[in-house]
C-alpha cells in the first residue's frame, strides 16, 4: 500500500529529502519500524514514529492503512 513518509532533523540530512510517497509491504507500525531500523543509512539514528500526527509508543503496534502519513522523529531539541 502507498503511504507518505515524512523525515525530520538528522534524517533529512542523511536521506536528502523531507518527504516521499511510496509503497510499503509492512502492515503494522512495529513491522515498519523494524524494517526502517535495518536501513543502513538511518539505522544508527534513534527515532520514533508518528502516524497521522499521533505518536506511537515504543511497545505499541498500530495497523497501517493506505494513505497514512508516517513521520520519523529523531530526538527533540527545542528550547
Amino acid at each position, binding site marked *: 500500500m502507498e503511504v507518505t513518509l515524512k523525515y525530520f532533523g*538528522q534524517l533529512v*540530512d542523511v536521506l536528502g529529502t523531507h518527504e516521499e510517497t511510496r509503497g510499503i509491504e509492512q502492515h503494522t507500525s512495529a513491522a515498519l519500524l523494524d524494517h526502517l531500523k535495518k536501513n543502513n543509512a538511518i539505522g544508527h539514528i534513534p527515532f520514533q514514529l508518528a502516524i497521522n500526527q499521533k505518536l506511537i509508543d515504543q511497545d505499541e503496534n498500530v495497523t497501517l492503512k493506505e494513505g497514512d502519513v508516517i513521520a520519523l522523529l529523531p530526538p527533540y*531539541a*527545542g528550547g
Partner: protein
Amino acid sequence: MKKVFIEGPISSEFIGDAIAKHQSKTSIGAHNIFLGQVRADAVDGKNVAAIEYTCYEELANTKLHEIREAAFEKFDLICMHIYHSLGTIKAGEICFFVFVSAVRRKEVYAATEWLVNQVKEHTPIFGKEIFEDETHQWKVNS
C-alpha cells in the same frame, strides 16, 4: 490556536512589546519570563555559531495546545504565551520565550519551569548546531 513559531530570532523588542500588552490587565500582580539563548558552546575546540531549528509544525501545534490546556488546569494563571524560533538563530540570540502571568507571584515560578520542560520534552523541534567552520552536529536535549 495561538501562534508559537516565529521565523528567525526572538527580538528584545518583541519581548518588550509582549510585556507592554499586559499592562492593561490590572488583575495581574506577577509575571515570570523564561528566555532560551543560543550558547556558543565549544565542542572539540570549535564553537557553535548558530542553531538551525526545524519542526513538525502540525504535531508541534497539537502538543503545544495540550500543554497549554494542562498548564491552565494545573496552575492558577491569568495568561500564558509560548514562542519558539525556526530557522537559523545565531549564538547570543533568543530562540525560546515562555511568559506566564498570575494574580500573585507564588504560582508563576513553578508554572514557567513546568512549561519549559514540557515544551522541551514533548514538542517535535529539531536543532542543528552549526560550527564556525560550517560543519555541524545534531543537538539532543539533555
